[in-house]
């Protein structure tokens, strides 16, 4: 390897008194490597990268690009130095097309006006060159999460970035997509780009990264050659102790059917068939996984179950009652709770406090109300207990939740929904972008809920998550159930992958079992 293309030294960053995100952090990356930045949520990885990208200002410390000191006052300067960042929470304009988003800020001009055709061409060339097919004229709001990410990467490539920072890139991808994504990353490295990946998925680090820097609680633990360090060691350095063993799937007697769909079909907003003849049931004490490549009907499935989509054919029953025509509020009162996929949009009120967010689903409960007034004491106690049980790292119950890191925020969302669940929990990507320790906490609580006899539907693009938690699963492909699987352990990931890609499907007699 050559000289470090990038060096950060002595970086200190604090968000106000008592919240130290980076404490004398040093970090260096060689040209042409894929460098992993690993650590638990709230360890300071994202903060460090935001400082590098000029989005946050460090109180102390220096940044060198090719050994020349640079002051990263804002992202424009960072981009001028060839640094590009793909954020965990997408920074895209929903109401513009792919081409418009990619060219935003670097618009090709003709006669002083925006040259739409050139922008389309730009996207097409980049998409072809880096093998990331995406329709330049599609609106962002219509894209799946995986495609949105492609657009983000194209955006960075369009700005001719040499150093590309990826914040939790594979969190939203299926195994197949991840594999392709890795090929693309390797190709990028071959093309001379330097890549920094923020991640906590250990197998990925082993698979593609050259070196790894591990952070813990705002400090760097050290930088290692990936080849010379085992997954166990990485995990120990990240968490500070050995992670607990995998959970055992304890079976309990299945209770009555709590959630069922019978022959449900619906259309997507653009009028295409989104779901066709979906039939399944979940009993109390059961955890049913929904496997599938993103964008194969999962969103519609969840929207129907949670009352966000009311136009559909077929019947949906929650503990024996039909959900047809019920509002979200009514469905929730029937005992359904729901961990939404997009936590920033649907999961939290960023301006609200930890208490507001943790208690939002149980505010109407009689025990928290004295006449017209709410008992702040009880609400605080509830939020405090929740924060303790879910190990939410926080400063005070009253601080706006936007001060928490992504993983801690997600723990608040999961805690709120799991605690409020009376009969059925819909968990849509409950651990997306969450570190190992937090995943463990969330999984334990979901498993506990199941043991209490609740019915749980788990939608996840992370196959290993579904395999850890579920015994039964359905596989969705293009809006249809292509397989009902009664014992997940009997299938390999490759076999599941064939179903997910629609290359194989169970015969109807089999599927009915």
């Amino acid at each position, binding site marked *: 390897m050559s000289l470090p293309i990038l060096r950060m*030294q*002595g970086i*200190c960053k*604090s*968000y*106000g*008194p*008592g919240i130290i995100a980076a*404490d*004398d952090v*040093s970090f260096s990356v060689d040209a042409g490597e894929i460098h992993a930045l690993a650590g638990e949520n709230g360890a300071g990885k994202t903060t460090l990268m935001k400082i590098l990208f000029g989005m946050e*200002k*460090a*109180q*102390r*410390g*220096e940044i060198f690009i090719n050994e020349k000191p640079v*002051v990263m006052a804002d992202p424009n300067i960072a981009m001028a130095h060839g640094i590009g960042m793909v954020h965990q929470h997408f920074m895209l304009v929903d109401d513009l097309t792919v081409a418009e988003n990619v060219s935003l800020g670097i618009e090709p001009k003709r006669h002083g006006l925006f040259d739409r055709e050139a922008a389309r061409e730009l996207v097409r060339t980049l998409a072809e060159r880096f093998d990331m097919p995406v329709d330049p004229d599609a609106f962002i709001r219509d894209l799946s999460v995986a495609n949105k990410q492609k657009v983000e990467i194209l955006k960075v490539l369009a700005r001719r970035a040499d150093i590309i920072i990826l914040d939790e890139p594979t969190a939203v991808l299926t195994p197949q997509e991840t594999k392709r994504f890795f090929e693309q990353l390797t190709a990028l490295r071959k093309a001379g780009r330097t890549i920094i990946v923020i991640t906590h998925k250990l197998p990925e680090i082993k698979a593609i990264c050259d070196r790894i820097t591990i952070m813990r609680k705002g400090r760097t633990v050290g930088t290692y050659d990936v080849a010379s360090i085992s997954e166990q060691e990485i995990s120990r350095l990240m968490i500070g102790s050995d992670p607990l063993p995998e959970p055992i799937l304890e079976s309990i007697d299945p209770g009555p059917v709590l959630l069922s769909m019978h022959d449900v079909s619906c259309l997507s907003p653009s009028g295409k068939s989104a779901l066709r003849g979906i039939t399944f049931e979940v009993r109390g004490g059961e955890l049913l996984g929904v496997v599938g490549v993103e964008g194969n009907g999962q969103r519609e499935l969840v929207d129907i179950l*949670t009352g*966000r989509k009311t136009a559909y054919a077929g019947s949906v029953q929650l503990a024996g009652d039909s959900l047809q025509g019920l*509002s*979200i*509020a009514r*469905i*929730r*009162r029937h005992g359904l709770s*729901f961990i*939404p996929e997009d936590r920033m*949009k*649907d*999961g*939290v*009120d*960023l*301006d*609200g406090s930890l208490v*507001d967010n943790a208690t*939002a*689903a149980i*505010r*109407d409960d009689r025990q*928290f*109300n004295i006449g*017209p*007034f*709410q008992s*702040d*004491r009880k609400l*605080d106690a509830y939020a405090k207990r929740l924060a303790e049980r879910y190990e939410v790292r926080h*400063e*005070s*119950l*009253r*601080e706006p939740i936007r001060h928490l890191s992504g993983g801690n925020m997600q723990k608040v969302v999961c805690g*709120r929904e799991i605690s409020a669940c009376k009969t059925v929990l819909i968990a849509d990507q409950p651990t997306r972008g969450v570190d190992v320790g937090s995943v463990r906490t969330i999984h334990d609580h979901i498993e506990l809920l199941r043991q209490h006899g609740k019915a749980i539907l788990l939608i996840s693009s992370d196959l290993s998550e579904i395999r850890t938690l579920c015994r039964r699963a359905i596989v969705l492909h293009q809006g249809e159930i292509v397989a009902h699987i009664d014992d997940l352990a009997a299938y390999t990931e490759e076999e599941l992958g064939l179903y997910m890609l629609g290359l194989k499907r169970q015969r109807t007699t089999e599927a009915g079992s």
Partner: protein
Amino acid sequence: MKRLSAFVSRLCSWFKSQFTSRHLLTALIEGGRTLIAILIAYLVAFAVIGFVSDDPEMAIRWFVFGPLSSPTEFGEVLKNATPLLFAGIAACLIIKGGNFNMFTEGAFYAGGLIAALAAIYFDLSGILAIIIPLACGTLAAMLIGYIPAKLKAKYEVNEFVSSIMFNFIVMWIGVWLISNVVIDVTSGDNATAPIPDASRLRILFENTNVTTGLLIALGVAVVAYLYMFRTRFGFRLRMTGDNKAFARSVGIDVGRAGVSSQILGIGVAGLGGGVEILANYHRFNWKTLPGFGFDGFMVAIIAKNRPLLVPFAALFIGYLRSGADLMAFNTDVAQEVVQIIQGLILILVASEAFFSSAWFRGVIAKRMFRRKQLAPVGGVDDHA
């Protein structure tokens, strides 16, 4: 005794949870920011006065110290602040619910007109002579305000546009009424009959124009605070205003929460209109919109949408206007100077980046680092 001490300790811990050092710090920073904005605005205003006046010192003296020179003058401040307080609370409720319904303006007009008519034609006595007209004015405003609010919730009609149109509809109907239907020709004006004495709000302090309306306004501020921050309805309102998608997904009926926040805000403005008429007018004779509704949004922005800060913001604007009145009356400077100050303060307070608290926090955090004596690394400078 035991229960008392338990209560005291609970109170203490509540205070601690409410006012940790960080919250206090944030509050100080925000307050300091507003003060600096006011200071800058004043300096500019002084420069303008110096430019246009032959005797700038006199003008500035009237402007700044005039309102504080006697109880009577300070009474004018309080009188000016009262409708602003109502309007500010109304705007808080509406903004916090995530809407921008400008019908508070029309609500002031409708509330005032209906309260005056109810007072004249019901001709009640005792406390009812006050309560019934005010209630009628409030309800009338809420009824009319329901239309743009519901249009927004049901058909996504932009409430900003529709509410401004409703302002004019209401105003011109009102002008038509006082010119044709309820006109008292003996007044020599397009105005209603005189409001009976029983319905006039009582003066609170001698030699001033401060009425019981001020107490009603303060009461409304406290009730609005309790509603917004201490009840489940207020919680729904705040969550809906902050993030509609989130509110919807946790099972809040966002349509209803949005409508109720607007209706309540408009009700407060309607009450403010009634109080204004019963406190300061012999007859209802408004032929234009009073402007309080719009002022309310300014007050709410200065008060950062916090109901308990609204009285202070209203008092300040009331003080500014009294000073401007006195300056215009006694010197050669027009009272419009106050518009410059208001405009500047608003721009500075509303612009997030101006002395943003993040910037202040950065300064403070840097100090903390220094105090903790983190070992400096390799010739690092203090570039923030």
